[in-house]
């Protein structure tokens, strides 16, 4: 009898001990925070944040000396403006609970419950606030990329209104469609770190702004205006550095997928930089620094949608192929069609992003990332079709909305600075400052 009682107790005791032991683990899973992942995503947020100043320098070195501050100012103001917009409304439109696949609900309006209450399906093992801020940095850089197209001529007030409208009406819905549970994600389109949401959308919108605003007044017969190429190289370095956070961070965890994304990003950047200068060497006899830098950026653009889904050798091929395309776009297509996409936001980000999204549909492999889908090369056709639809939707939506915003705006205020202001340079005429004083 005693024994009969003891046996269950023996078992019971074991169970209690087991439960006690597992408690901390269970608790950890309840709050589900992982310090390694959190550390990772906080730092990655910093890296992606740094990309926007990096882009500003990349662009700033390429413009005329008298307009460099206006470029830096636009990128800087985008950081400020989109940060506030994101907290108030942008984040919830993008990542709030899905409303018919179109837009996010107002769950996180004003970042309500983002700090106090961290239940969010997207968040995984990091604090909700960190996830939300990481995503903010993507919204910022996307808007900043567009500035390259309308550089050296847009009015500052028109710029402010345009950016605010664009990020709310174009970026936020797109981010929702692809990453926030919207219809494109349901369709099966993969976009690891933003080939469509970030690069195609900004590139295409840039093209439209260039078309609507018209060309810069020509002063020089030639196109060389880059006033400070070391500045451009520094910007490229910061972009390369930040892109590690952009792509690896998009795994949202410090795991093997993050490692893969790191690897493919670096590989594509390197390969595209090489292939750009090879083309230049062949065609011009002189490989340029701006070419090496442009190639690296093009490579990172192209690998962005694919970063966590393809093998390093696929990344190498993607990198090698994207540069010839972008080189052709910026040196021939632009001249041929005659639009003035000043710093080639479309030529690099639009074209590179498009190629990258298609390449995802070709090179993605479940052997590399079991959570992914197989591309054409691995026997899957569905993904490629989904990518194609995603690209077309992004092109149409971004182009139409940008055109609409600009035309409404045009009815209200002039979009361009005056001839005198353009001649004097935007730095002094719009911002009352000189970049360099003797």
């Amino acid at each position: 009898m005693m024994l009969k009682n003891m046996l269950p107790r023996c078992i019971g005791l074991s169970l209690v001990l087991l439960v006690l032991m597992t408690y901390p683990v269970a608790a950890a899973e309840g709050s589900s925070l992982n310090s390694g992942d959190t550390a990772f995503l906080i730092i990655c947020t910093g890296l992606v944040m740094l990309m926007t100043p990096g882009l500003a320098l990349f662009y700033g070195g390429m413009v005329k000396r008298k307009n460099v501050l206006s470029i830096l100012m636009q990128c800087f103001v985008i950081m400020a403006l989109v940060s506030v917009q994101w907290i108030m409304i942008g984040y919830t439109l993008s990542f709030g609970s899905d409303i018919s696949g179109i837009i996010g609900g107002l769950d996180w309006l004003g970042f309500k419950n983002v700090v106090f209450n961290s239940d969010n399906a997207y968040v995984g093992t990091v604090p909700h606030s960190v996830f939300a801020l990481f995503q903010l940095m993507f919204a910022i850089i996307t808007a900043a990329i567009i500035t390259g197209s309308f550089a050296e001529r847009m009015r500052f007030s028109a710029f402010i209104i345009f950016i605010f409208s664009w990020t709310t009406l174009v970026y936020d819905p797109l981010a929702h469609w692809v990453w926030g549970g919207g219809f494109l994600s349901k369709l099966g389109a993969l976009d690891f770190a933003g080939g469509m949401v970030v690069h195609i959308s900004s590139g295409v919108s840039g093209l439209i702004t260039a078309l609507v605003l018209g060309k810069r007044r020509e002063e020089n017969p030639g196109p060389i205006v880059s006033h400070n190429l070391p500045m451009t190289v520094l910007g490229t370095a910061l972009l390369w550095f930040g892109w590690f956070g952009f792509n690896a961070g998009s795994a949202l965890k410090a795991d093997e997928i993050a490692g893969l994304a790191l690897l493919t990003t670096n590989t594509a950047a390197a390969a595209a930089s090489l292939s750009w200068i090879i083309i230049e060497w062949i065609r011009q006899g002189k490989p340029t620094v701006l070419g090496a830098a442009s190639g690296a950026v093009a490579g990172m653009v192209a690998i962005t949608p694919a970063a966590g889904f393809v093998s390093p050798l696929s990344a190498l091929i993607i990198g090698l192929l994207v540069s010839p395309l972008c080189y052709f776009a910026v040196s021939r297509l632009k001249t041929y069609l005659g639009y003035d996409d000043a710093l080639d936001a479309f030529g690099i980000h639009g074209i590179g992003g498009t190629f990258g999204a298609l390449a995802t549909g070709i090179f993605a492999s479940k052997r590399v990332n079991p959570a992914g889908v197989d591309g054409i090369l691995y026997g899957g056709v569905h993904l490629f079709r989904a990518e194609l639809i995603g690209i077309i939707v992004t092109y149409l939506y971004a182009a139409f909305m940008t055109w609409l915003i600009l035309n409404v705006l045009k009815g209200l205020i002039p979009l361009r600075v005056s001839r005198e202001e353009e001649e004097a340079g935007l730095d002094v005429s719009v911002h009352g400052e000189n970049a360099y004083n003797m």
Partner: protein
Amino acid sequence: MKKIEAVIRPTSLEVLKKALNEMEVRGMTVYNVMGRGLQKDIKQYYRGQEVEVDLFPKVKVEIVCRDHWKDRIVEKIIKVCQTGQIGDGKIFVYPVEDIIRISTGERGDSAL
């Protein structure tokens, strides 16, 4: 021989160069200067403090030429650099006593 010194808008340099090229006037020396004339001051700002700036960026183009070329070149400069607005710049003409081409040691008109 004369020296023509034209202080012009930076934005006029490229067209001027092209125009002179067409006249087969190639020799010239160019540098950036800051200039003050009738152009009215503009305001710049430094942390809330206002500063009147009265020096504007200009480009100085120096062309040394034979005496009888002087007028043609001056006409051409006026033609391509004139917008009619204040700030178009000025042309100054100076006498030149001698010219030497360093590479050959040639002197005078033949050094041009």
